[in-house]
């Protein structure tokens, strides 16, 4: 095992050397760093060209420059040496500093989107696999391919136009005409009918219910100007919480496990009580406090499950823990909604909350809720754009992986011994289907660090992708190399982790040292 890891690391280092040499040479060859000066009419054109040449060290041949760069980069390997030197970019900023900043920007931008895309993608993949060749399957496949085919800058422009500018205009007077409410209700009703599957009667009932409920809710929102002063309140939290409790229990243990259901419901009750208890505390919230509260919430849920016990204590704990987390999230959402009016009326926001660019409103002031709402309103559009275009690969991969598993012998065996469909899918198929997906996810993390180049450009976020493209357009190898090294190391590290995890997850795979 250890020898295996060591050997992988040595190979990785060699690969990194080779690839970095290649990237350096290619970047240096890719253009003329003096292009903008050559046609300049400045009387001191030559002096400016000389200055840039000496800044970029252009008189040294590119391969030699690579080794100079490597010499500086090698110092990064010295632990706590603080001598890391990846060179400077054309603006004179050290690359290490630029990278640190860009990395934060990129991670803020893509983390949420990637997590959500994975969650939604896997869920859709499983559902479509279970309903292979149904209307739902075709519909999701079509949508997935359609979004995959859309250039992201296009998606982004549309999102800005309708998701930000349109929605902000709507918020000025958030009234939904009854016709629109009916239309949205009808669309969602049809979707629900398609999703639910089964007999026509069942579809009709579900679709009709969704249609009625959605339409009524929208009309209610419109009358009360809910979008101006949103909020859930304890009653809605209780109702939603109960629904979540049942749903989670169905997935985790099945409703037959009464103890699990009871623990989940108890957790919901505790959540509603806690809703009142934590309000004063939440008024003084910080990020750390929210985190501690989240952990505490899960622990309480698990504890409730533990004490309720039942024939399968683990299932109760899991069901209650997940329910607790989700109810906690509802309370949090409610608190954000309470903060919404103060964010909305903030003098910096001026009643147009959804932003089209950047990572935050400059100079905004306010409490934790206002500030984090600000971050979210800036992230919402890029996140949606990224989810839409990356959904396809997760959906399709999960679907095929799931289909493959569902045809396995051990699934047949599981069915043969009379297990319920729920435990076949959740207990046997789903987990195994996740194994290959883990590889894909690990592979994507490298690309993720590399930055969503185009998304960054469109939403003017200056992350890793921007650093890279800007370096390339100036034919300045230093930033390009900085980004590349980060991406490559992350990608290789995660591949190794994925391989090791693979052998841990899949007993058929053994690592030969």
């Amino acid at each position, binding site marked *: 095992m250890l020898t295996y890891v060591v050997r992988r690391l040595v190979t990785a280092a060699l690969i990194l050397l080779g690839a970095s040499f290649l990237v350096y040479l290619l970047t240096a060859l890719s253009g003329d760093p003096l292009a903008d000066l050559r*046609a300049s009419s400045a009387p*001191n054109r030559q002096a400016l060209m000389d200055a840039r040449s000496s800044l970029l060290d252009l008189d040294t041949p590119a391969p030699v420059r690579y080794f100079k760069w490597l010499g500086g980069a090698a110092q990064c390997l010295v632990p706590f040496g603080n001598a890391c030197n990846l060179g400077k970019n054309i603006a*004179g900023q050290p690359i290490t500093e630029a990278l640190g900043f860009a990395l934060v920007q990129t991670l803020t931008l893509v983390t949420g989107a990637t997590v959500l895309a994975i969650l939604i993608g896997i869920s859709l993949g499983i559902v479509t696999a279970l309903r292979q060749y149904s209307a739902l399957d075709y519909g999701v496949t079509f949508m997935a391919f359609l979004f995959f085919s859309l250039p992201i800058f296009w998606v982004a422009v549309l999102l800005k136009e309708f998701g930000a500018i349109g929605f902000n205009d709507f918020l000025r007077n958030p009234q939904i005409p009854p016709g629109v409410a009916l239309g949205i209700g009808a669309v969602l009703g049809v979707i629900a009918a398609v999703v639910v599957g089964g007999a026509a009667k069942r579809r009709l009932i579900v679709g009709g219910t969704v249609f009625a409920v959605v339409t009524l809710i929208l009309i209610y929102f419109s009358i009360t100007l809910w979008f101006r002063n949103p909020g859930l309140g304890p009653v809605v939290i209780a109702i939603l919480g109960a629904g979540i409790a049942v749903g989670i229990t169905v997935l985790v243990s099945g409703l037959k496990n009464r103890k699990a259901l009871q623990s989940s419901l108890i957790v919901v009750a505790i959540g509603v009580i806690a809703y009142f208890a934590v309000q004063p505390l939440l008024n003084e919230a910080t990020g750390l406090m929210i985190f501690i509260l989240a952990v505490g919430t899960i622990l309480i849920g698990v504890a409730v499950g533990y004490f309720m016990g039942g024939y399968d204590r683990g299932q109760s704990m899991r069901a209650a823990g997940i329910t607790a987390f989700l109810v906690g999230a509802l309370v949090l959402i409610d608190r954000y909604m309470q903060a919404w009016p103060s964010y909305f009326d903030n003098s910096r926001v001026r009643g147009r909350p959804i932003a089209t660019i950047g990572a935050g409103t400059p100079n905004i002031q306010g409490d934790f809720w206002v500030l984090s709402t600000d971050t979210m309103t800036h992230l919402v559009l890029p996140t949606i754009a990224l989810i839409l275009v990356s959904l396809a690969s997760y959906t399709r991969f999960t679907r095929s992986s799931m289909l493959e598993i569902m045809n396995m012998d051990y699934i047949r065996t599981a069915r043969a011994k009379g297990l319920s469909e729920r435990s076949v899918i959740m207990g046997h198929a789903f987990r195994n289907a996740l194994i290959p997906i883990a590889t894909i996810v690990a592979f994507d993390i490298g690309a993720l660090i590399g930055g969503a180049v185009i998304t960054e450009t469109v939403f003017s976020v200056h992350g890793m992708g921007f650093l890279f493209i800007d370096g390339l357009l100036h034919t300045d190898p230093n930033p390009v190399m900085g980004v590349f090294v980060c991406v490559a190391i992350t990608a290789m590290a995660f591949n190794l982790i994925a391989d090791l995890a693979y052998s841990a997850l899949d007993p058929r795979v053994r690592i030969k040292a």
Partner: protein
Amino acid sequence: MRFGRISKAVGIAAIAALALSACAGNSGGNTPSTGASKQGGSATVVEVNALNTFNPNTADGNTDINSKISYATHSGFYYIDNKLNVVHNDKFGKFEKVSDNPLTVKYTINDGVKWSDGAPVTAADLLLQWAAFSGYYDDADPKAKTGTSYFSYAGDNTGLSLTDFPEIGDNNQSLTLKYSKPFADWEIALGGPGIDVPAHVLAQKAGLKDTQAMIDFMKSKPRGDTKNPQPVDPKLKAMSDMWNTGFDTKTLPADPTLFLSNGPYIVKSMNQDQSLTMVRNKDYNWGPIPSLDEITVRYIGSAPAQVQALKNGEADIIAPQASADTLDQLKQLESQGVTVDQGNQLAFDHLDLNYTGPFADQNVRTAFMKTVPRKDIVNKIVGKLDPNAKPLDSQIFVPQQAAYADSAKNNGSSAYQDVDIDGAKKLLNGATPEIRIMYNKDNPNRVDAFSLIRESATKAGFKIDDGGLGASDWGKALGKGGYDATIFGWINPGVGVSGVPQIFKTAGGNNFNQFSNPDADKLMEDLVVTTDRSKQDDLEKQIDKKIWDSSYGLPLFQSVNVDAYSDRITGVKLMPNQTGVWWNFWEWAQK
């Protein structure tokens, strides 16, 4: 106060709560007072690039945004208005020509002008600027690779290199420059639009005792001589290093002396690559007094994103790189109260003909020029942006300058107003010269101009070769031959005449098509030593005519300049040069 920093600082939630409430007390969480008086308010301006240094004069830091921020946070003896006049700021100080022979200019800084740390602005600050701009101490010889180049100044030092070490007087408030021969652009050589590097800070950071020590030291150093290079002077090196890179930053420096202001605004906060905020400098009273309390600059690269940000209220003033579609989009916003201004930039595209190959014969050049559909090019490329756009009719002036109209009338450009295929055919006399046109293939305007010229020239019998090159290659090919004509752009400096001989004088640094005219050369020699502006105009008009008479090529059109601002803001005015809308930022006001 972002929450991240606080959460790091405190361990447990209770303490966090305390800290936060304490913190919330001073930041208020509420709106800053707005609109109480006519003064006040805020505006958000969009720029493309992000600030990376507080010294915009260095070769690496000389980008538009650095200059603009410097312009708003520093003041000087003059600024340039949107009619391209040099406007003196007498409240800051006085500068005047005391003698014509030798040319002597005296700069006097008023009492009371001070940096934002309280130190007065003195002649030492001006002296430092002179040392950097003149390259006085440089003894580097790039060919022989000897000597040292100290201050890495982005601008042209031909004027100030003619000066001796200046004389400092009036209790360090005045500085007198003596030129060894007349210099046409003396008015814009020094002292404006901003004196941006504080000498007292630089002296201290470079290890000198105080400003006086710096002045004494500089006085003691002789002029650098490239023929006789000296070893690197450590003190001078420390000073120039500080000047070159000491003010580089992308975040607000912890040390406030690194971003001192002596102008209307002070930088208050910087969010790396996202935004920059300036607030009013309360002490400032030595120049136009600004109206807004706060200006925020946001960095947005693409024009459509800028327009959408304006539409969504995230930006108040934008000046996007305009295309017809951006402009249409902006016009649609007029219903929302947005005001759109359009005009010309100093940048213009032109067609140059090489004085070699098929174009060695002036008749062929003239014939080719007759075929160029200038009106069509203007209409199709910039007509949508600016319906009043006309072909540019001078090689030297732009319509913003007073002398343009007169020069355009008399320089002979009238012969090339309309396409004259028959005239061209007559001149060609049956010949079918093969012409290779080089241009930047990655610039759609140039590609379109080429397409239209090819279409028309072919009719007269020219055979047109497409010599277009990619963005990174066409610049290198300039002046190397291998083509007969080229389409590219110049930026007219707007103020000053030093650029003219660069392009049009025999063997000038940017004379890519080998135009050579002894009379014109003579006129240009006179031009650069003429200090009187009206005489300069006269000479330039004569040069313009010589250029047109020799069928040099054709100026095509000026780039279109667009700005737009929301209904919250008033006072924004178009400016053709690189200062852009910023030129009169003190007139911006919130409604």
